[in-house]
């Protein structure tokens, strides 16, 4: 076997096993024939090389479409494709809601008769906050089927957060490095999940997501106002209202709604998987940010309260997710063989998201 063939077969390992069993030999024969035809005088030189970038990209794209399937894919791939697309949509929804609410607060603080509160700081900080508004056009582009525009705009919206994290890491001498680094990875998760919006992906039903965004914009200030009334003050409020706290609250609520829906709405298999993926990621976010909070934040009285609140948030989230995962044993969850339509094979948005 020539190095070229060996390298191409290694690339084909990206494909699902059953697909590879059916097509690998055929693909290898076609690939080699095309490679030799492109260089009729230099067979030996060709055999020592590797597959070109465009060929590798076509295999990677095929693997993505097969594993995170769209219309006509095997049931298991359809289910995972639907779940990963929900991860992306929920991530962009969360960015949109916090971006709009944060920008609204910044504008209100900047235009008000009183000087801006210290937490809003300089004009630059206000502009920084406004840059989070980019999540809104990214979300809108995704809902209307413009997936490339959505990915580009979401990447642009992510950049200020990335730069902010880099600046924070450089400026704090390693303090909060764990939570900052994990936070960047967490925020990148929905961006990576956008890959599931490939050409075969079904259209998104945009109306429920628009209602969810509007509801979120109303619910977020209400939640933060409510959180500030919780006894404990500075020992509790930061944990309830920081990024990890908001995700824990939203996902716990979504998991509870999913449990109560008994297999419908947020209880449907793709939603359960999406909530599990997001929930595990958010649990990591809470854990890392809690660890850094306890190590580096100013001490509070009583000292044990932040750890207690953080562990309660984690406990509630993990318990709700575990209960939701426990319902994933019914017959409707088992993927049918072949190219059958599954319970997942419905337009995204047929259940109202509540995060």
């Amino acid at each position: 076997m020539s190095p070229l063939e060996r390298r191409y077969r290694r690339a084909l390992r990206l494909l699902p096993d059953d697909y590879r069993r059916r097509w690998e030999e055929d693909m290898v024969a076609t690939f080699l024939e095309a490679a030799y035809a492109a260089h009729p005088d230099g067979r030996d030189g060709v055999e020592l090389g590797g597959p070109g970038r465009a060929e590798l990209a076509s295999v990677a794209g095929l693997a993505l479409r097969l594993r995170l399937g769209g219309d006509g894919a095997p049931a298991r791939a359809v289910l995972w494709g639907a779940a990963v697309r929900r991860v992306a949509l929920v991530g962009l929804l969360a960015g949109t809601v916090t971006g709009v609410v944060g920008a609204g607060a910044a504008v209100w603080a900047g235009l008000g008769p009183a000087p801006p509160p210290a937490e809003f700081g300089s004009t630059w900080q206000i502009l920084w906050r406004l840059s989070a508004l980019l999540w809104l056009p990214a979300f809108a582009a995704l809902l209307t089927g413009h997936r490339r525009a959505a990915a580009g705009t979401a990447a642009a919206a992510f950049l200020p957060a990335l730069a902010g994290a880099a600046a924070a890491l450089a400026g704090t001498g390693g303090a909060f490095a764990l939570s900052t680094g994990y936070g960047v990875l967490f925020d990148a998760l929905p961006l990576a999940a956008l890959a599931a919006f490939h050409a075969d992906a079904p259209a998104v039903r945009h109306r429920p997501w628009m209602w969810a965004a509007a509801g979120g914009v109303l619910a977020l200030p209400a939640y933060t106002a409510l959180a500030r009334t919780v006894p404990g003050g500075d020992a509790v409020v930061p944990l309830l209202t920081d990024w990890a706290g908001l995700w824990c609250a939203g996902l716990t609520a979504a998991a509870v709604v999913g449990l109560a829906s008994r297999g419908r709405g947020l209880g449907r298999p793709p939603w359960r998987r999406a909530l599990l993926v997001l929930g595990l990621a958010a649990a990591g976010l809470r854990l890392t940010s809690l660890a850094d909070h306890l190590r580096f934040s100013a001490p509070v009285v009583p000292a044990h309260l932040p750890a207690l609140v953080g562990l309660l948030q984690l406990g509630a989230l993990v318990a709700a997710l575990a209960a939701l995962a426990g319902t994933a044993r019914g017959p409707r969850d088992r993927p049918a063989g072949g190219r059958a339509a599954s319970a997942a094979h419905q337009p995204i948005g047929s259940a109202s998201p509540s995060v």
Partner: protein
Amino acid sequence: MTEPAFFVLAALVDAPRHGYGVVAEVADLSGGRVALKVGTLYGVLDRLVAEGAVAPDREETHQGRLRRYYRITDAGRDALAAEAARQAANAEAAAGRLRRYRPAGAGGAA
């Protein structure tokens, strides 16, 4: 119907072909504009076989390697004909508009 699927079906109309035969025929049919990558071709073939538009025809050994040939089915031919008619109607509508077009300065309808 996607453009690669359209060209793969068109490449199989006159004779069954193996994978590289389809790649070469598609490049020829499109005047070199469409250069099918292998991952793209087998994504399309897998879909077309599943839909019943294409079927395996025969297998041959060539220089020690297996060549699997594919042929278009009646359903595939019907789907291609419908798509070709749709594209021809679109092209004719646009061409008609262009024939009637006169720049504003030339006194015709803009």
